[in-house]
């Protein structure tokens, strides 16, 4: 009896080790990236990475790609442009990764573009803004829904002009993303002969905005386009709530970074009402695709222990979508050949949890899918309200519209 048990155990053991060996014969597919896990962009980098990790676990549960497991090689770039070139060189030359994802944000991404182009590697971009406009790397694919450079400002100004706006004010932070937005807003306003009656940039880390808001409201604009960063977004809305911006303002917001992050939104509460702002994903009808709900169920479970944004609407699903893009291309081409992957992504539309994605020749989205949505009926100190539909009503794009604009801005704030 004992001997039989021993024999059984031995055979099982050998069997298991053989299966293990078969798996080990196939080395994992390595995907390399740097991610801002510390520094100014870390608030976005962490949820983005969690989205990518959820995709890795999902695809590995299904057997991986080409029968090989997927492994992520991730280094922290401190949100700095100076760190990422050496990291990507290490990923390519020492770690010998098979595929590359870009770090979150423009600043750490811009310096790696020349290296990646020189090595002929596909790079899946992560929410950077027009980094390929000068480099022209034909294997660059940005996961962000921005689309053409001017689409963002056009959408916002469309809504404002339809609401009767004839003049515009521009308030922007002196930081990379905000200045890019302000630049395109100026260009679009110029094309439409929309006079800019107020154009002010403020230094980063400004906390007191009452004098700026007073000057802005004295210019009596109809549309106020704000391109700001998380701490200043809060300061601006606080000043607006104390002083007001005047009765002629029909539309306020546009490019306020921070109003997409759960903790910031919960803290701001009712101050958000009436603001029309950009977003990438919202829990509105029409935003759910195959796998979207399952992703957010899993994300909610993992976000709290990982100490990242408990909502994760803005970046996390796009991290997952980056994985889906590369998986679709690798599976369809049955190879890790960079040229074949790039050709596939240029020619095909890939179904992802954030909707179908198709790329134009420059590697940005063919059509913009950046949402403009208005905060409506928000109460204080309640983060769960943002998980329900109807709190951020989508006004653009037309096909996803889920409600109507309340205007003027002062009326919408009540």
């Amino acid at each position: 009896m004992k001997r039989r048990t021993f024999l059984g155990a031995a055979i099982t053991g050998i069997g298991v080790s053989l299966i293990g060996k078969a798996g080990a014969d196939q080395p994992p597919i390595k995907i390399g990236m740097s991610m801002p896990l510390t520094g100014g962009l870390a608030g976005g980098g962490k949820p983005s990475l969690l989205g990518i990790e959820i995709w890795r676990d999902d695809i590995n549960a299904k057997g991986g790609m080409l029968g090989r497991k997927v492994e992520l090689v991730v280094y922290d770039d401190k949100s700095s442009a100076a760190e990422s070139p050496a990291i990507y060189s290490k990923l390519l030359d020492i770690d010998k990764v098979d595929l590359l994802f870009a770090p979150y944000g423009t600043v750490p991404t811009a310096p790696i573009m020349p290296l990646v182009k020189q090595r002929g590697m596909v790079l899946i971009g992560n929410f950077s803004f027009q980094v390929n406009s000068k480099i022209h790397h034909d294997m660059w694919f940005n996961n962000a829904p921005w689309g053409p450079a001017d689409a963002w400002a056009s959408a916002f100004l469309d809504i404002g002009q339809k609401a009767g706006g004839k003049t515009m004010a521009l308030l922007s932070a002196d930081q990379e993303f905000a200045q890019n937005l302000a630049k395109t807003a100026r260009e679009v306003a110029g094309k439409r002969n929309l006079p800019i009656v107020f154009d002010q940039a403020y230094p980063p880390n400004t906390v007191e905005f009452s004098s700026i808001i007073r000057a802005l409201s004295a210019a009596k604009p109809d549309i106020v386009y704000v391109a700001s960063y998380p701490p200043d977004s809060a300061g601006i809305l606080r000043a607006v709530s104390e002083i007001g911006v005047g009765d002629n303002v029909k539309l306020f917001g546009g490019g306020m970074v921070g109003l997409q992050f759960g903790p910031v939104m919960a803290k701001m509460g009712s101050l958000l009402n009436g603001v029309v702002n950009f977003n990438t994903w919202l829990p509105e009808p029409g935003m759910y695709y195959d796998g979207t709900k399952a992703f957010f169920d899993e994300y909610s479970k993992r976000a709290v222990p990982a100490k990242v944004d408990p909502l994760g609407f803005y970046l996390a699903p796009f991290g997952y979508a980056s994985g889906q893009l590369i998986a679709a291309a690798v599976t369809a081409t049955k190879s890790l050949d960079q040229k074949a992957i790039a050709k596939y992504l240029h020619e095909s539309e890939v179904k992802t949890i954030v909707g179908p994605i198709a790329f134009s020749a420059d590697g940005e989205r063919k059509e913009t899918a950046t949402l403009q949505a208005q905060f409506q009926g928000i109460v204080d100190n309640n983060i769960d309200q943002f998980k329900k539909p109807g709190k951020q009503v989508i006004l653009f794009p037309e096909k996803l519209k889920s409600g109507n604009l309340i205007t003027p801005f002062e009326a919408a704030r009540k």
Partner: protein
Amino acid sequence: MKRNAIAFWGASVLFLAAILLSAELVANEYWFFAGYVILQFIVLSVAWTILGGYAGYVNFGTSAFFGVGVYTAVFLVSAVGAPLPVQIAIAAVVGAILGFAVGLLTLRMQGIFFSIATIAITIIIETAVTNWRELGGAAGIQIQRPPVTAPFHTYVQMLVFVQAVLVVISVAIARYMQNSWIGRGLQALRDDELAAECTGVPTLRLKLIACVISGALMCAAGAPAAMYLQYADPASAFNLNYSVSVLAMALIGGTAHWIGPVIGAILLGVTQQVLTVTISSEVNVLVLGVMLVLFVVGAPEGIIGLFKRRRPEGKA
């Protein structure tokens, strides 16, 4: 003395030849990326030591000079398409002028007041560049590298060689200053400025010379960074991390001799590169802090101080 000079220049030529040869022998490009960063820190910390070590004026404005170097190169490339040597030469001139201006404004202050003034200058220059839309402003600016010139295979290999030449130049200058009347004068004013002044040492003139040379070398070290990154944004170019790292490198290596900052930069630069890709960048900063505290307590004269204690007759 003469034998020392032959040994120094011989070692310099060997060092440059080794870098040149590595472009042929080493295929793995990561070593060039990592090496570039370390060489850049050697130039910066040697430059820092000229004012901070020899004269004892602790400068927190390394990032200001470095950033000005980066943006001078960016300006020259985007405006007239200047080649790399011209970028470096003009950056050095700009750095010297800036060093002179900063020195005139701040060198009458001493101790902590001088250090605070240098931080203020970093902030002023960064704010000016942030608002300079032609240079990309806060949004940053992308620039294109020209094709690489022979015998190098990639542009980064060439940048490593250029940075190595800057290392030799900066060490040679620091070495000359240390052994000349300038070094002796600076040492006198570091120990007691009033006494030095009374005995006829032209203190302000010497401090200005140190400030001009230090500024020129820092800006020259920053200029190739524009081509290394092909992108510049004020937050990264004027990052205070440069000031802190360079200060730590010089203090850990030792500031009394030119070899101190070289040792400190190699030690900390390598540690930082290794930690960034093994543990995390956050630990990297922590390690820097811990090492600095340990050295300040255990070896206030840095690594070279430890050797000197063993060999008290050690020659400068």
